[in-house]
C-alpha cells in the first residue's frame, strides 16, 4: 500500500520533518547569548513524525487544538515561520502580537490554537467540532495531547461528550513517556494512553514505529472514516523528545532518563531514517531539487 504514496506526498513529508527540525535547531542555537527571545519554549525535536504526516490531510477550516509542545503542529497546520519567530521575540508582528509566546502559540488565520495548562485545548476541540456540525461543515477538529495531559479529568469528560454526541474529532496522543521529568511508570497503571479511551467506544489506533509512509496510510484511513461517520477516533504515537523538557538547554544531566534509552531513540530518529530510506531509492535527489 505504501508503494502507492505519490512523490509529492513523500517530498512534503520530508520537507516538514526537515522544516520542523531545522526551525527548532535554529531557535536553540540563537536563543543564547542574545537572549532576545524571552519566553519558555518546549521544543519537539524527535517528535516531528506526527505533525509532518498529519499536515498532508488538513485543510484550512480544519482546526488543531494542541498541547504546549506545539511548534511542529503549528508549522504543520500551515503556520508562518516568520510570525512564529516574531512571537517568540515578543513582537507585535507575532502570531499573538507578542502576548502569548511559545506556550500559547495561536493563529486564527490557520485555525491553530494551543495552551500550556495541560488539557483544556483537547476539550475545546470538542466544542469546535460541534460548531462544525452545527454549521454543516465537512471539516474536522484535531486535538493534540501528551501522555501527561491524558491524566487530567477533563479529558475523560470530553471523550465521553465527543463519543456520545458523535463529533468529528481526531484525538492524537503523543506519548513521549515523560511528564516533565517523571516517567509514566511512576504515574499510571497502564502506560498505553489509549487503554483509557477504549471504554468510551472510541476507535483507537496505536503507532509504535517511525515510518512516515505507514503512518500516512493509517491517518488517511482514520480521517476518511471520521469524515464519513462523524465519529471521533483516537491515535496514540510512541515518540521521544531529544531536547530537554523546556529549552533551549538540555536537562539530561539530571539523569532522569537512562542513557541507553536516549541512544536507542536517537537511532530511530524519524528524520534520519526517512532520509536514508529515500536516498536508497535515489528519491532524495528529486526531493532536494524540489525543496
Amino acid at each position: 500500500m505504501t508503494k502507492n504514496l505519490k512523490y509529492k506526498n513523500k517530498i512534503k513529508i520530508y520537507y516538514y520533518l526537515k522544516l520542523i527540525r531545522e526551525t527548532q535547531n535554529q531557535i536553540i542555537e540563537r536563543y543564547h547569548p542574545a537572549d532576545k527571545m524571552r519566553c519558555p519554549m518546549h521544543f519537539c525535536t524527535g517528535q516531528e513524525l506526527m505533525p509532518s504526516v498529519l499536515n498532508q490531510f488538513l485543510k484550512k477550516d480544519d482546526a488543531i487544538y494542541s498541547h504546549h509542545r506545539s511548534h511542529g503542529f503549528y508549522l504543520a497546520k500551515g503556520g508562518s515561520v516568520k510570525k512564529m519567530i516574531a512571537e517568540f521575540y515578543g513582537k507585535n508582528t507575532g502570531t499573538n502580537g507578542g502576548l502569548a509566546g511559545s506556550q500559547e502559540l495561536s493563529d486564527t488565520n490557520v485555525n491553530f490554537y494551543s495552551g500550556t495548562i495541560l488539557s483544556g485545548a483537547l476539550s475545546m476541540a470538542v466544542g469546535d467540532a460541534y460548531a462544525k456540525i452545527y454549521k454543516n461543515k465537512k471539516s474536522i477538529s484535531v486535538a493534540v495531547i501528551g501522555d501527561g495531559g491524558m491524566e487530567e479529568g477533563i479529558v475523560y469528560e470530553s471523550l465521553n461528550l465527543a463519543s456520545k454526541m458523535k463529533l468529528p474529532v481526531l484525538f492524537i496522543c503523543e506519548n513521549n513517556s515523560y511528564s516533565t521529568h517523571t516517567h509514566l511508570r511512576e504515574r499510571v497503571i497502564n502506560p498505553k494512553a489509549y487503554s483509557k479511551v477504549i471504554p468510551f467506544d472510541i476507535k483507537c489506533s496505536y503507532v509504535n514505529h517511525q515510518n512516515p509512509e505507514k503512518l500516512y496510510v493509517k491517518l488517511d484511513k482514520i480521517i476518511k472514516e471520521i469524515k464519513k461517520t462523524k465519529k471521533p477516533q483516537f491515535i496514540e504515537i510512541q515518540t521521544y523528545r531529544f531536547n530537554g523538557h523546556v529549552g533551549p538547554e538540555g536537562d539530561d544531566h539530571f539523569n532522569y532518563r537512562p542513557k541507553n534509552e536516549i541512544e536507542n531513540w536517537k537511532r530511530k530518529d524519524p528524520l534520519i531514517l526517512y532520509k536514508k530510506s529515500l536516498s536508497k531509492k535515489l528519491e532524495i535527489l528529486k526531493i532536494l531539487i524540489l525543496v
Partner: protein
Amino acid sequence: MKNKTQRILTFAQSIKEAQMQAFKLDKNVFIFGQAVDKTGHVFHTTEGILKKYGKKRIFDTPNSEQAETMFAAGAANYGLRPILIHHRVDFMAYSFDQLINWISLWSFKSSGKSSMPLVIRAIIGRGWGQGPQHAKTLHSMFSYLPGLKVIMPSSPSEAKGLLLSSIMSNDPVIFLEYRALYNTKEHVPERPYFIDLNEPRKRLSGKDITIVSMGASVLTSIQAVEILNKKSIGVDLIDLRNISSFNISKIFSSIRKTKRLLIVEDGWSSGSISSEIITRVMESGIKLRKPPQRVCWPNSHVPMSSQLEKDFYFDSKDIFKVCVKLMKA
C-alpha cells in the same frame, strides 16, 4: 400603577423571552447544560424552547462542568453563541481552570483577533434550606478576572435587556440570576431591546444617601428606601448591573451630592464588590460626611437551619438601620 396596555412578565418569563428572541435574531445561539431541556426547565426559563427549536439548539449534557465549559469555548471560537446553564453557581467551581486560563484571556492572548462570545447563566443565592453548597453568590470571585463580564440583573425588564446584550456581546459573560427574583413581576416591553453592559442604572433619586447595589439586593434596597422616604430621607439608588467593568462616574457624581455612601451586596464582605467600590471612592479623594458603610453577608458559609438562615441574610430593616446611622450628626 395598573395600566391595561402594560405587559407584565416574571423574571423567569423575561429570561425565557430574551433567549427565544436571541434564537430568532441569530441562528448561532444555542443553549446547553445539565437538564436544561426537561422537568423544571431551569426555574421555567427554558420552557417550550426544545419544542420550538429542536435538539440542535437546546440539549442536555452529562455531569461534566469542565468539558461543558470548554465545549462552549470551542463552539464560540468557531462563531457560535453558546448559552451554558448551571442550576447553581456552586457547580461552577469545577470550571475555574476553563474560566481562568482559557475563556477570560482568549481574546487578550490573540491580541484581539479572536473573541469568545459565550454566556454562562448560573443561579445564585438564597433559597430555603439550600445550605453551604447550594446558596453562594461567588460574583466577586468572577469579577476579579480581567476579560470576563459579570452581569447581575435586578428585575424582569433589566434581565431581558441585559441577557440579550450579553448573548450578542463578543466577550464572555457570566450572568448571575438570584433565585429569589424568579417570581418578581414587572412591565417588560415585547420587542427585543438591549442595555449597555457598562452603564449602571440610577433606580431612585434622592439627596441624602447614595446606595450602590446589584442583583436581588437592589430590590431589598428599594424596600428599605420606601421606609426611609417616610422619614424624609432621600436616596440615590444605583444598580451596578455589571459588577466587573462598570462605569464608576455615576457613583462619583452621586456621592459628590449626597456625601454618604452605602453598598448593599448579597455576598461575603471580604474581597467583595463593596470593598472595590469603597477603595475606588477613597482613591478618588471625594470627601464624605461619614465613613462609607456596607451591608453584606457575614464572612461565614451559608447555614441550612431556618433559624440560622434568618440571622445570616440581611433584610430591608438592616439597610434602614445603617442609613439612619449615616444620617446622624
